[in-house]
C-alpha cells in the first residue's frame, strides 16, 4: 500500500510538472498530446480490465502454497526453469505482464524468479521465432534468442542477489 501511494505521488508530481512546462511552451501541442494519451489509454482499457479480472479469478483458484512451492524461496532451479519456459514461449504485452508479476510477488514468488519471467517475456520469443527468422535469417534469430535467454537468467540471478 505504501509503495503504491508513493508511486502515485511521484507519477502525479512528474506528470503535473511536465504538463505545466508543456503548456507554457505550446498549448496546442499539449492538447494534442493529451488527446493522443487518452486515445492510447482507451485502447488498452478493456484488455487491461479483462486481465485484471482473470488474475483476480486465478488468484482465488491457485492457492498461495502452490505459487510459493514452484516460484518461491525454496524453488531454486525449478522456479527459474518454470519462469524461463513460460516467459520464453508466451507473448504477453507489458501492461498485462506487470500486474501479473506484482500479483506473483505478493503471493510469495521471489524477485529473482519474477525477473527471469519478465525478462524472458521481453527478450525471448519462441512464438515469434518463425517471423524473426524470415527477417534476420535462421542463424541470427536463433543466436539472438539463445543469448537473450542467457542474459535473462543472469539478470534474474543479479536481481535475486540484490533484492
Amino acid at each position, binding site marked *: 500500500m505504501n509503495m503504491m501511494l508513493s508511486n502515485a505521488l511521484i507519477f502525479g508530481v512528474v506528470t503535473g510538472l511536465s504538463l505545466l512546462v508543456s503548456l507554457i511552451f505550446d498549448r496546442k501541442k499539449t492538447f494534442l498530446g493529451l488527446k493522443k494519451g487518452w486515445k492510447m489509454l482507451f485502447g488498452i482499457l478493456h484488455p487491461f480490465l479483462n486481465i485484471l479480472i482473470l*488474475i483476480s479469478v486465478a488468484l482465488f483458484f491457485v492457492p498461495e502454497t502452490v505459487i510459493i512451492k514452484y516460484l518461491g524461496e525454496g524453488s531454486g532451479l525449478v522456479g527459474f526453469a518454470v519462469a524461463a519456459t513460460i516467459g520464453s514461449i508466451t507473448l504477453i504485452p507489458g501492461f498485462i505482464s506487470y500486474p501479473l508479476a506484482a500479483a506473483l510477488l505478493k503471493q510469495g514468488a521471489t524477485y529473482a524468479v519474477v525477473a527471469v519471467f519478465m525478462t524472458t517475456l521481453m527478450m525471448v520469443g519462441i512464438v515469434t521465432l518463425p517471423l524473426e527468422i524470415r527477417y534476420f535469417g535462421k542463424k541470427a534469430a536463433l543466436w539472438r534468442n539463445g543469448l537473450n535467454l542467457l*542474459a535473462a537468467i543472469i539478470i534474474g540471478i543479479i536481481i535475486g542477489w540484490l533484492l
Partner: protein
Amino acid sequence: MNASTTSNRIQGNLKNYAWVLLFLLFTIGSYLFGFRPGMVIYSNFTEFFIEMLLFIPFLFILIGLFDVWVPKEMIERHIGKTSGIKGIFLVILLAMLQAGPLYGAFPVAYLLYKKGASARNIFIYLGAFSTLKLPMLGIELGYLGWKFTLIRTLVSLPLFILVGYILEWIVGKQFEVKDLSDHGNGDVA
C-alpha cells in the same frame, strides 16, 4: 450511414467490455446471495484496480506529451550515418521512444538496415526495444517499484550491448535484414 457506424461502434464497445459487464453482474449477484468466492474475487480485483487507477492515467498523459514533443523522425534520419558510441546511443534512444511488442520492432530493424546501420546497432536496437521502452518502464515502476526497475535496467543495458557485439561477430559481413512487406513484389523501396 452515420447512424450505422455509430451503432457499429457501440456494438464493438459492448463486445470489448463483455467480460467486464459479465464480471460486474457476477459480483452483484455474489453480494446479493452471499456467494463467498465471488466476494473474494471482487476484493482481489478492487485491489488491482485501485493500484492501476493510482498511476495509469498519469502514465498516459506522459506518454501522450512524449509523443508530441520528442522528434523521433529526426533521430531516425541520423541513425545510419552515425557510428561508434554515438551510434549506439542513438539507437538506444530511438528504441526507448517506441511502444508495443517485439515483433513490431522487426520492420523498424529493416528500416535501420536500409539506412546503413550496422548489424551490431540493429541488435542493440532490438535489445533496447525489448527492455528499455519508456512507456513500459513507467508501468514497471508503478507495479514493481523503482528498485526493481532501476536494477533491471542497469543490468540489462550492458548485457544487450554485449549481445549486440557477439551477434555481429557471429553473423559476420553477409548479414542482411529482409523486408517482408514487399515479399514477392520485387523491390518497393
